[in-house]
């Protein structure tokens, strides 16, 4: 490379310096800090003087009585959320697409994606209030049908499903946008051709609309594989309680408690690393699949 070209590229390097420095400090230093997963880390001694203990933290993790249930809860909650998060927005997008009245269509969209923009603290406050067994509106409504109050947030059988339903409430409207965009991109001539061939509405949906949406559905499905260990920390943290740990405790909340509350830094980092490694594999794999089947590239 000539000197001249190197000189020309100097401004690009300068522009990148602030971002690079901050990313090194707040992303790469913590990645290096993962070594404490292999240490008996003591804050007073720091990373350089704490004792190295190999894989002891991981062994300890695998022997913890609740580790298996935490792992199972995470996958179970995440997978149902992924499935609901695919089906509900697709169905709503298909239904909205059939609406001719633009005002109604717009109003419904405006309402259904509003919850997406509120934090889980706010939505958690609302969920706790409306699901209260004593005075919440949901149990009052169920009472009209003679159903006894259900403690949705305090009953370990109900809790995972309460998570899935409230998560769908927050995010399905947002997901719908993606599919609606894909629907409007379908070539109208295909519908005209289908009508000429005598296709009715159901046949048009089946043979034109769904195939037209297939690339985006494939893409979203494949990309969601990367979330199999993400059961939604912010939501669970704001809704769970010791009463529902058996079915509602997930990896991220577990790491928070043993790490920041009990100050077992080494073990918590080991659990976090266990998750990061699997998640990394899943994300790389899902992006490969996405590239193969939908021609998707992040960069």
């Amino acid at each position, binding site marked *: *490379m000539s000197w001249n070209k190197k000189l020309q*590229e100097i*401004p*690009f*390097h300068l522009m*990148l310096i602030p*971002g690079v420095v*901050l*990313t090194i*400090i*707040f992303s*790469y*230093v*913590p*990645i290096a*800090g*993962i070594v404490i997963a292999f240490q008996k880390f003591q804050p007073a001694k720091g990373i350089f003087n704490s004792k190295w203990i190999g894989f002891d933290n991981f062994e300890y993790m695998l022997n913890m009585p609740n580790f298996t249930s935490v792992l199972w809860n995470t996958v179970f909650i995440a997978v149902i959320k992924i499935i609901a998060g695919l089906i509900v927005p697709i169905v*709503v997008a298909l*239904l*909205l697409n059939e*609406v*001719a009245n633009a005002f*109604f269509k717009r109003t*419904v969209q*405006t*309402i*259904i994606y*509003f*919850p997406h*923009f509120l*934090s889980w*603290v*706010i939505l*958690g*406050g*609302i969920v*706790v*209030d*409306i699901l209260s067994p*004593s*005075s919440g*509106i949901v149990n009052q409504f169920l009472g009209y049908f003679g159903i006894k109050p259900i403690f949705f947030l305090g009953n370990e059988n109900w809790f995972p499903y309460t998570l899935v339903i409230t998560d769908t409430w927050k995010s399905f*409207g947002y997901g719908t*946008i*993606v599919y609606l*965009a894909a629907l409007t991109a379908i070539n109208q001539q295909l519908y005209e051709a289908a009508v000429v061939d005598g296709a009715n*509405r159901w046949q048009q949906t089946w043979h034109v609309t769904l195939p037209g949406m297939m690339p985006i559905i494939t893409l979203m499905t494949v990309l969601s594989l990367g979330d199999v260990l993400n059961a939604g920390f*912010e939501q669970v*943290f*704001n809704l769970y309680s010791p009463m529902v740990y058996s079915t509602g405790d997930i990896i991220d909340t577990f*790491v*928070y408690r043993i790490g*920041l509350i009990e100050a077992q830094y080494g073990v918590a*980092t080991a659990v*976090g*690393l266990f998750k*990061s490694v699997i998640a990394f594999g899943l994300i790389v794999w899902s992006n490969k699949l996405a590239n193969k089947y939908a021609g*998707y590239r*992040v*960069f």
Partner: protein
Amino acid sequence: MHKLSTGRKVFLVVNFVVLFLAALLCILPLINVLAISFSSKAAASGGYVNFWPVDFTTASYQYALSKPEFLAGFLVSLKRVALGYSINILLAILTAYPLAKERSTFSYRHIYAWFFIVTMLFSGGLIPTYITVKEVGLLDSIWALVLPGAVPVFSVILLMNFFRNMPKEIEEAALIDGAGQWRILWSIFLPLSIPAIATISLFSVVGHWNAWFDGLIYMNSQANYPLQSYLQTIIITPELNAVSGNELLDMNEVSDRTFKAAQVFLASLPVLVIYPFLQKYFMKGLVMGSVKG
């Protein structure tokens, strides 16, 4: 327009009803809590409030607005949004511009690009990040809330794709006229990228306004909590409540329930105000983000 068949008519009616109910289900919880916030203590604790306030009163709002913790949290949040937003946008622009160049123009582009992609694929996790922030000496400082997420990688990608889709000729003409890269970025690319910048601005503002977990772990003193972290401690974990039970008993009009409901709404108000813009630009942003160069 040809006549609709009976089957089609039935479908349209059913479709209308289903969508109407879906929208209603989304909004009713919010309306219920809003109604509670404007109801009297007795009506709220007796469970008489549905979707309209009973014994209308603004006592809960007056009480919330008179709490110094609430106002302090509000101010910390405003400061955080202003600071965090400025840093996010500046860094997104400065990072996205060089990355949007072809390899022939900027030979190290791919190395930098991978440098940033890695952070999306792998992170140190909660504990190492916490220890880093602590060691850098940011605990109890507002910088702990804005610096760790200073480079918004998702926004960088969005802006980068937007920059890439601009006609190459504009840049070539400017180079021939003797403009440097800084000038091209500032005087040509930025004015043309207002829609993309509006989109990432909203991502950043909403993200900072809604963030609560970092405030909870990085701030030792409750006086430094942003609003959402403060609300997290009083709405979700009442035992850590700054408002003691006795204090509430002193008040005739306000119950714990109406007080919480009022605060939920006060904290959502800013989001509600910018919601029309959010809707407009998030749509665009999603479309922009999906058109890969």
